[in-house]
């Protein structure tokens, strides 16, 4: 019988390593494709540098960016999976382990006591967990480390409900225009609509996990995603904000029901390095790595 807590720890540490060193295939291919399609020298040279950097990262198993992010995990626990609170303990251990092994940059800073040096906060909360319950006997873990530069341009607004979907679009356009060159474009954009002031941000972040060019199963929302992708690229931010090449690789949206008086909209922006990796562990401790 395998030590399942140990399997979780090792798997999650490996997921943090995969996320930091290797881009999901479709992101990598889209960036290479963008380089070939970009005509201007400034934009093309930026995309060339990005792609060369991605290649070095994968070959040398080193983090593609020095900002290896603030760590969060999306976790789905099956009804019959043997562990509960120990999952959390194992993921915290995994974060410490990956910090020294990969290595990841120590990014957890306590407001009063300084950098904790192991990416784990002194007061809980970091790494941050999104827990969900599911049927079945397995555990799904997705590691999402997110860089500070692109988190700094995230935005949330309580749009007046009377403005409707147009108000949502306006706010997304404004958020991306404000991000401009600041957060390493080309960007991938997650938009969360509805819920409360916190839920829309959570949904926006979750939307980033959907593979590029896989649109929402609801056709109305899928059309809106495609429309926003087209619209946002008209901002002409360009690679690294120099006005040439793609501005936005893709837009994903998630919708929750809203309060009649509220229309919360959250916008979470990822830099070109859209990093995440996932795996599923069954109740015997066998690991199934998600396609990356």
């Amino acid at each position, binding site marked *: 019988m395998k030590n399942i807590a140990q399997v979780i720890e090792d798997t999650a540490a490996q997921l943090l390593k995969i996320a930091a060193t290797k881009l999901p295939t479709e992101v990598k291919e889209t960036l290479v494709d963008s380089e070939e399609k970009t005509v201007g020298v400034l934009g093309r040279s930026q995309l060339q540098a990005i792609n060369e*950097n991605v290649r070095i990262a994968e070959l040398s198993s080193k983090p*593609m*960016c*020095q900002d290896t992010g603030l760590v969060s995990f999306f976790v789905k626990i099956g009804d019959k999976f043997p562990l509960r609170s120990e999952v959390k303990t194992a993921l915290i251990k995994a974060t410490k382990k990956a910090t020294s092994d990969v290595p990841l940059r120590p990014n957890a800073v306590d407001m009063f006591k300084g950098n904790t040096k192991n990416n784990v906060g002194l007061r809980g909360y970091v790494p941050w967990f999104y827990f969900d319950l599911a049927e079945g006997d397995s555990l799904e873990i997705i590691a999402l480390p997110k860089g500070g530069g692109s988190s700094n341009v995230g935005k949330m607004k309580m749009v007046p409900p009377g403005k409707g979907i147009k108000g949502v679009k306006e706010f997304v*356009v404004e958020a991306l225009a404000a991000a401009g*060159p600041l957060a390493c474009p080309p960007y991938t954009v997650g938009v969360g609509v509805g819920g409360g002031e916190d839920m829309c941000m959570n949904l926006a972040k979750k939307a980033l996990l959907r593979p590029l060019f896989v649109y929402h199963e609801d056709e109305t929302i899928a059309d809106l995603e495609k429309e926003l992708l087209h619209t946002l690229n*008209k901002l*002409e931010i360009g690679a*690294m904000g120099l006005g040439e090449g793609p501005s936005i690789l893709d837009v994903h949206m998630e919708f929750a029901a809203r309060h009649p008086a509220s229309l919360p909209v959250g916008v979470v922006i990822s830099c070109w390095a859209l990093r995440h990796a996932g795996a599923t562990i069954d109740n015997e401790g066998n690991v199934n790595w998600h396609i990356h």
Partner: protein
Amino acid sequence: MDYYLTTPISPEKLKEIKIGDIVYVTGTIVTARDEAHLKALELHKEGKKPPVDFEGIGLFHCGPVMKKNENDEWTVVAAGPTTSARMEIFQDEFIKTFHPGIIIGKGGMGERTTKACQEEACIYGYFTGGAALLAADRIKKVKDVFWLEELGMPECLWVYEVENFGPLTVTIDTHGGNLTDESKKKIEENKKKILQEL
């Protein structure tokens, strides 16, 4: 046009360079983010000198990932630029006080920095954001580190010896030019157009 610069870079050389040019730096660059800027300026106010002479060298907005090798020497794992805009609030004072030759970062900087670059002969070189391994490849030696215990790995001063560090796109020159500002203005105009058409 491409320029190959060696530190300390003279003001005369810097004045030849214009926005849109590409430069490569050989010599010394020092990492400094928010905390290091503040600390260096505080020391200066107290009449003390920071441990590094910044004159004519590269000031790199970067919080690297460093690791000690088997000989207990520091090596660079990843060292790409951080968002420079955060340093806008004190960069002009830093330039006027310490006279670095080139600020290296990403995302560009604002009006205050542009003005200081014009007055003091300094330029801003845009390194591809996130290209941390390309940058690490051009760092030939870790010469020194200061304030590591106090500020931590990302915020302290790492002194690097670099060879052809770049390509750096010049987005602020000594003539008041600011390429990312131009780009931002265009984005702003496009935004207005898009909002009208929605």
